[in-house]
Every structure is written in C-alpha cells, then in structure tokens.
C-alpha cells in the first residue's frame, strides 16, 4: 500500500484531490487538517516520514495566462521523505488570498522553521504558531513579497543609492 493510499484511507474527507504525475504521489488537502495529516505521516510506523525535505509555495495568479482557473491563489507545497522506507510524498494545501495563514509544522519537524520563514519572506503567507517568523533572504525594510506573480521582476528597492 503506497503512502498516498494510506493517507487517502485515513483522511477521506480532508482530501480535495490526488494525483501521481510522473510518479510523484501528491495529495491536496484542506488547510484545517494539515497538522493532523502531518502528524499521521510522521508517527505512523509504516509511513515514518522523518524528513521534511522541502517547503515552498506557488502563486497561481493568472496561471497559464489565465486559461487555467484555480480556486485559491496560493498553494503550500510540502515534500516529505522517509529514510527507513525510502519513499516520498507531496502534500499541497490551498491558501486563500483573503486569509493567508497556515499552521506551522515547526512542532513536528524543526527544519520547518527556516523553510517557513522563507515562504513568509517570498510569498507573505503567515504561519500560525511559528516562533520566529521574520524575513530570511530579504532585509527587514523590504516592501512586498518578491516571488508573488504581481511583484514586477525588475522592481528595485535599494537600501542605499538611487531610488526606483
């Protein structure tokens, strides 16, 4: 039984959608059940996802030039890896533009700390319960969130020197 099937069986109501494009098992889940699913992934012996390999987000504003409509603008993307069973799973959580807040996974994987800071820095998604949510790559005075699709690629915000 693959990890995705296990999650599907356990959280039938929480799952919005699943797919295995090119063999990457993916489950899109509702934001409110993120912590429960994450706990299940980490603590079930047959799954044992002890690595939170990567946390990132994707901005779907005008996705494919507006041809593909997504219900919510942002999506959190989590990549989990199990050292013992050598399997991976991707969990995605849609995030509403009006309520940019997701639960932090910091209590389960310490590595979430910096990853979530980066997502906050680049996308402006807040993490409920994060101990130290501040910018990591950009400086504190930076205005806006650089990886959002509505942030112009050539916009300059120098701390010193000529202004934009």
């Amino acid at each position, binding site marked *: 039984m693959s990890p995705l099937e296990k999650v599907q069986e356990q959280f039938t109501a929480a799952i919005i959608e699943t797919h295995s*494009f*090119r063999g*990457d098992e*993916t489950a899109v889940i509702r934001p409110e059940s993120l912590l429960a699913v994450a706990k299940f992934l980490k603590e079930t012996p047959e799954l044992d996802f*002890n*690595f*939170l*390999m*990567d946390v*990132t987000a*994707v*901005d779907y504003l005008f*996705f*494919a*030039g507006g041809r*593909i409509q997504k219900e919510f603008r942002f999506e959190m*993307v989590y*990549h989990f890896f199990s*050292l013992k069973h*050598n399997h*991976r799973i*991707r969990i995605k959580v849609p995030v509403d533009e009006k309520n940019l807040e997701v639960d932090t996974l910091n209590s389960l*994987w*310490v*590595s979430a*700390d*910096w*990853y979530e800071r980066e997502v906050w820095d*680049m996308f402006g998604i807040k993490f409920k319960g994060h101990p130290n949510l501040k*910018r*990591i*790559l*950009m*400086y504190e005075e930076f205005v806006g969130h*650089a*990886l959002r699709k509505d*942030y112009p*690629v050539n916009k300059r915000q120098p701390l010193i020197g000529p202004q934009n």
Partner: protein
Amino acid sequence: MTQTRSMLLNVGPSHPAMHGVIRMIMELDGEKIKNVDIEMGYLHRAFEKMCETVMYAQCFPYTDRLNYVSPLINNVGFALTLEKLLGIDIPERAKYIRVIMSEISRVTDHLTCVGASAMELGAMSVFLYMIKAREFLWELVEEITGARLTISYVRIGGVKADLTPNFVDNAFKKIAEVRKVLIEADELLTRNRIFFDRMKGIGIISAEDAIAHSVTGPFLRATGVAYDVRKANPYLIYDKLDFEVPLGSAGDNLDRYFVRMAEMEQSLRIIEQCFLQIPDGPIAADLTGEVIPAAEMVDSAKMGQTAGLIEDEVSLDPTLQGSTRKYYESISADKKSVVLPAKENTYGNIEGLMNHFKLVMYGHGIKPPVGEVYFPVEGANGELGFYIVSDGRDHPWRVRVHPPCFPIMAALPKCLIGGMMADLVPTFGSVNMIAGELDR
C-alpha cells in the same frame, strides 16, 4: 555590585573565515558561545524569480551559479528534473558523461572544502596542494565544456559536447595526480596533532538532530546515517556502478573530514568504472562529406549553395569541440521537440533551421505538459532537489531549488552553542556553505 553581561559579537558578513557573505551574531560568555543568530541573504540574486521569466533552456546558465564549486551537478539536477517533466529518456553515453562530470565536480567541491578548512587551521600547504589537485580536474572540465566555472554544459535531452578523443587518457593521468595529492593531504592532516585536536569532538551534532533538521549529505553521513540519493534513489546509471557510501559515527568535524576524504576516493572509483563501461562514441570513419569551417558553411548556405551540404561536417572553435553532428547523435535524445539540431543541420538544411527556430523563438520553445515534478540528485553537500511547476507554456511557472546548505545552516547553531568561539572556524568550514545556493 558586580554585574555580568554577555557580549554580542558580529562575525561577518565579510570575514575571511566566512566562506561567502553571511553574518553571525554571537552572544558570548567569555570565549564560550551562548547563542548564535545567523543572518543570510547577502547573495540573493532571485534565481527562482529569474527562471520564471526565461525559457526552460535559458535557466541552465542560472543553475551554474547556484553551487559555484560544483556547477555541473546543478546542471545535471535541473536537466533531470526537466526530463522527468517532459517524460524523455537520454542516450546511454550521455548518461555516463553526466555521471563522469558530476563526480569530477563532487571531487572539486570536497577538495575545496577540506582544503579551505585546513587552511583556516593553519595548514596552508594542504590548501595549496588541494587547489593544485582541483586545478587538474578543472582542466578536464575545461577540455570538455570549454569553460571552468560557468559551464552550462548539460542540455535538455543530453549534453553539449562529446568527450574529446584523448580525454580518457588525460583523465587517468589527472586522477593519478589527484590520488597523490589526497595521500599527501592525508599524511599532513590526519595524524597532525593541531589539526586532530581542533577537529575531534568539535561541532558535534547527533543523528536525531540532523534528521530533525532534514540535513543530508556528508554532514548527515558523518553522524552514521546512510543516506545517499545515489543509493536510495539511483538516477542516471548509478545502479550499475560499484561504490560505497562512507559513514562516520561521532558527527564531529573530524568525521566530516574523513567522510569527505573517503567520498573523493569513491568518486574517483566511479569515474574509472564509467570509463570502462561507457558505450563507444562515433568513429571518424562514418564521415562522407568534407570538413569545412563553420563560417564557410553559413556563407554557402546563405548564397543558396546547399547541394551536398547535408553530408559535410564543420570544424568548430575548440570550445565547441565534440558538438558536431557525428557526435551529436550519441549524446542527445532523438526528440526534435526538445533537442536542438546539430549545427550542420541548422545551417545546412531548412528542416534543421526551422527546428532550431521553433525551439529558440519566444513563445514557441519547449512546452512540457501541465504538471509538477520534484527530482533529487546527490549534490556535493547533500540532496539537491528541483521542483518545477509547468503551465504548459515555454516558461517555467515556478522553479524551486532545495539547496543542501540551507537545512545545514539552520542546524549549525546546534553544533556551535556551548563551544568555544575559536571552534566556529573549523565547524563552519566543515559545513562547506556555498552562499550561491544558500541565498539563490
């Protein structure tokens, strides 16, 4: 009344012992480190944002600049992710070439790391020897790719150029030289009292902590956890090769040094095995036309003198050696929708020219299906993963790099707190932080 206060000390952003620009704010009690705050982002060049603005093939030059000590592995990782997204396979020979180049890069990376951290502990000669060895390997890289650092060598569906005719001989000579340097360095460092005392038992991280921080690569393996992407999830032809994954046990600086030294030997072994197994490339005998300079071919094509041109071969600049048509077929996937035609075809016949323009014109280009993929490769510092989201157009919608340094830097305070200020130097050296991939 006496009052005790801890001292705040800034190390970096620009400090000789900081490999790149990074700032650490230390809270010191005498010489003991009570707390560390790491501030990064000084080398942020918006890699992920820039990739969203260019076509897929144009992302490769950006990936060169991620880990600038082993740029070839970044190239390979990005290409493999894209190939997974496109669902294409590449020729055997190209796979071997990619593995050879990745392993050469891994050795150069480890040589830099061990050499630099030895230099910071006073062993200047080891640093110079190791940079000498790295120079031998970079000469090999230069021979194949035409550049030393910003190589942009890997292509979607293959590589840019085939191995040069005398590459194997050269490589064996250089590998022998590198082995000599490794033995020398081992003699100078491993039983050196000063080096040993400053490495042993310093900067310890437990296996549990390392896993909790999602640390991978030599940093994790030094704690005794056998995780190597090349073994766990073999890509290219790593499953056909015989190599070991060196492990440490204590998780201290000394073990990380041992793991890196042992890994270099394994990488050299892999390269040697690849040379024995690699399928034969083209032989010069299958040439039917004549060899003419590239400019001449372009001129005659422009004047419409295309008769017989399809049989001809061009002689190219040395930096493009090995990328002419006869080599091209054995190192590129046979898929016209993603792989650029050989230059003879571009200049010599209309089909090739159209194919070329379809791939490089804005709004045309390579169009993967809508979807998302993640692909990990073993970088020199650990798992290097690319996550690409495609919207079906010729630009990536989102490119995310999972840089191996990032979780290691997050875990670094665990190694430093409670230690001495002077131990920052060897511990930080053993991380092998590369600001290019950390800040992207």
